[in-house]
């Protein structure tokens, strides 16, 4: 039974990754695009060029910020969803899932309508006299962070809600009954029990944010550069497949390392 699934994984994931890694060791020449070689010059170029290192750090910064805000916003929502006995619970769940029905690019287009110089937000601000000139919201880090949070939030809420559903309400009531105030009950009882959901939601959000493409391109504009659009630009814009492959590998490795490290630290902390 494991055979067919393993074959699909090998062909669909492992093989392209192996090929991509091999490409990353090749050389780029404008006329031939890729010349067979065995060199680490593409990786050297990345780590010795402050521009590309800055793009990686910017990506990590945006992903960390978006993930932190997502977790903070998602936990109360997930808790309410898990604890509610309302007959509208399914409707509330649908409201969380609904944004996932729309693609990232379409959602970013919606934000563009809101954030443009003549958009809804600026029209309200200028119309109400709060500002004289429209604020530059589009093509800023703020716009990207808002856009990425909007994409990731439903994933985090659903992940946390699934785990919180399994936390026995009696344990929470016992903590409160034994004299713990709501904050202590949350910190020492609910949060540790919900930790698997928090960690899963954090990992999911971080990976999605690190690899975000449509939102940074559409809301960040040409001057706000993150890793995934830079990878695409090398492949499609410059036909520099070797460097594009190296960038993709750096992005994959950074995402993996940061995810595994944070996961281990969180688990160690809550095991104490």
């Amino acid at each position, binding site marked *: 039974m494991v055979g067919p699934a393993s074959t699909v994984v090998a062909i669909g994931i492992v093989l392209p990754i192996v090929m991509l890694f091999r490409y990353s060791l090749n050389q*780029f020449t404008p006329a031939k*695009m890729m010349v067979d070689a065995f060199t680490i010059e593409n990786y050297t170029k990345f780590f010795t060029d402050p*521009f590309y290192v800055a793009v990686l750090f910017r990506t990590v910064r945006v992903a960390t910020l978006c993930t932190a805000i997502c977790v903070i916003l998602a936990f109360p929502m997930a808790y309410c969803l898990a604890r509610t006995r309302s007959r509208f619970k399914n409707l509330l769940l649908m409201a969380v899932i609904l944004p996932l029905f729309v693609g990232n690019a379409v959602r970013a287009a919606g934000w563009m309508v809101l954030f443009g*110089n003549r958009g809804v937000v600026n029209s309200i601000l200028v119309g109400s006299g709060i500002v004289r000139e429209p604020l530059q919201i589009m093509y800023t880090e703020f716009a990207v962070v808002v856009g990425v949070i909007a994409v990731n939030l439903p994933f985090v809420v659903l992940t946390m809600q699934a785990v919180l559903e399994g936390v026995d309400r009696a344990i929470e009531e016992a903590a409160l009954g034994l004299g713990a105030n709501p904050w202590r009950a949350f910190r020492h009882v609910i949060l540790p029990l919900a930790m698997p959901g928090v960690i899963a939601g954090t990992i999911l959000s971080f990976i999605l944010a690190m690899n975000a493409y449509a939102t940074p391109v559409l809301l960040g*504009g040409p001057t706000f550069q993150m890793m995934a659009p830079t990878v695409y630009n090398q492949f499609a*814009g410059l*036909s*520099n497949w070797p460097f594009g492959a190296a960038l993709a590998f750096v992005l994959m490795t950074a995402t993996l390392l940061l995810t595994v490290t944070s996961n281990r630290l969180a688990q160690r902390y809550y095991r104490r």
Partner: protein
Amino acid sequence: MDRQDSGITRRRLIQAGGALAGAAAMGGWSPAWGQSAGRVVVGTWGGDYSKLLSKNIDTPLMVPKKYEVVHDIGGDPERRAKMRAEARLPRGTSDLQGLSAAQMFEMNDAALCLPIDYAKIPNAQFLLPQMKYPYGIGHIYSGKVILYNPKLIATPPTSFADALDPRYGNKLGIIDIQYQFTMMAAALASGGSMTNYEPGKERLMACRKAGARILPTNEAMAQALQNEEVGICIMWKARAVQWQKAGAKVETVAPKEGIPLYISGFVIPKNAPNKDGAHVWLNEMLQSSAQEAFAEDMGYNATVTNARIPPETEKRIGFNAEERKRLIDLDYSYLAKNDAALKEWWDKTFKG
């Protein structure tokens, strides 16, 4: 029930299935295919351009010749990557690819294009010499001009040096995907040439420091001009005509340093499955009726001499005798050799 009497036996069913599979393997069995002269797959940009190719070439000129024309729609970066990726295959998936002149040169430089057999293209006798390449044919052309909004820019610019001036601050708009033409215009404005873009870099950095807006696409620039966020930019005249039609209050000026040509055309990939069909399509692309329709619908100039463009349209989209003398072609070899370095400078230094 007697199985012999039913008319459909297992053996007959297997025989019929085998015959059907055989016919399919012989080249596609279908009543429609039997009448078809073949399929031509045209790689092209989407949107209006693809629709107009259908309206002005495929439907009126190819369908009567029993050709089935299919569009493989995508951005040029993706389609160029596809050409490269398919290069090792004996049969590619497209018969033609729509590219700019610089990209056609680049693809030919990478040995991916089939030499054009002009003997198979009778309409090529009317082709303007600048549009005739051994590896591709120019379909439409326009020139890079200055666009400005007279309400925001009091003194009409006359040159690229006037347009790419830091004094306009954030009223100067620059299109990210037009980095080659922008660097070229800045070079021409600063003593550079078609084979040396270096002198323009300082000017561009000064504009950037003064607050010039960098917009991602041509469409974003159209919106910024409409909203009056941007008052001046450089763009192809054909686009300016389209934006004027859409209500943007912009005027155009042909720069005195020269008007860089923008040529869009088609190449045949070396491994195109239907090379003859591709030549037929190219011949129809050069039909005067198709060229006239593109001039009217899209605002680009015809690349053949026998197209009869109405004088009013010609005045709107074309260039007068004096301006025609200033039309300058790009140095495609320089671009192909330096594009990666130019883009790197653009991304890292100019935008960074």
